[in-house]
């Protein structure tokens, strides 16, 4: 029995690692910011989830009593990770970051009322 748990835990652990790796890989090699955004916010979150399950399994096997405390970390990540992603995307739109040419969709992501007023000269242009 114990070895099944351990094997499962090992498997989940590696799976988690792979997801983390892929998430970061995506962030490293995808072509534009918006695409890079996808990797970490999801793959990474799931990767952590897998690893936490692995950890739970392991400690269950190790201590003998089930303990699902680590669920909480995933819970918090599920709450917070989308916010980071959302705000980052919003920031990217605000800064009008380049996106690769194949991207389809509306030519202007931000509507006029979301862009703000006319640009003004920066007051401390003098030193940066």
């Amino acid at each position, binding site marked *: 029995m114990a070895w099944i748990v351990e094997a499962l835990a090992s498997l989940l652990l590696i799976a988690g690692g792979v997801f983390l790796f892929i998430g970061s890989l*995506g962030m490293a090699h995808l072509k534009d910011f918006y695409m890079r955004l996808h990797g970490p916010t999801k793959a990474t979150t*799931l990767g952590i989830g897998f690893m936490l399950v692995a950890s739970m399994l392991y400690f269950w096997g190790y201590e003998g009593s089930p303990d699902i405390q680590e669920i909480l970390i995933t819970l918090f990540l599920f709450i917070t990770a989308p916010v980071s992603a959302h705000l980052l995307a919003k920031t990217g739109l605000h800064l009008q970051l380049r996106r690769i040419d194949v991207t389809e969709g509306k030519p202007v992501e931000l509507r006029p009322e979301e862009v703000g007023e006319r640009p003004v000269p920066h007051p401390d242009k003098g030193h940066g």
Partner: protein
Amino acid sequence: MIKPRSWLPTPVLSILLLLVWLLLVRSVAFGQIVLGSALAVAIPLATYRFWDAEPRIGRPLKLLRFALRVLKDIVIANFEVAYLISNPWRKLRPHFIEYPLMLEERFTITLLASTISLTPGTVSANLRMDGKSLLIHALDVDDEEALIEQIRKRYEQPLKEIYEC
């Protein structure tokens, strides 16, 4: 079903808090239940004022089902995205999609946006200032309309049923 009372403004939240407490302390000892319950009552009372609209949960069971569905989607879709990202020969077709919202309340919109972000392939990039639509960036999409329809059916509808009816 626990009903909201003056000393218990948000029963669901309180239950959630109690659960989280028990998870945190890794114990279901009576003392911890007492302590956790006290906190579960006290904290909503203290933070009540920070909730501008009280989210009423019409159908808690449906919420659970919704959560499980999202979880399943996350896991399955993640494999797809992992494949997309790690396959260097695959040409991605990113999209910006304007998603018209049915939901009206901020909290439920947030839930929807989070769900969209968590499920792979899509990130909710911007909630329009008027709150009527959501700008979504999708990693690889053939059919824009299909995606909108899928989100509508799988996530927005249930959310609307759970909270806004």
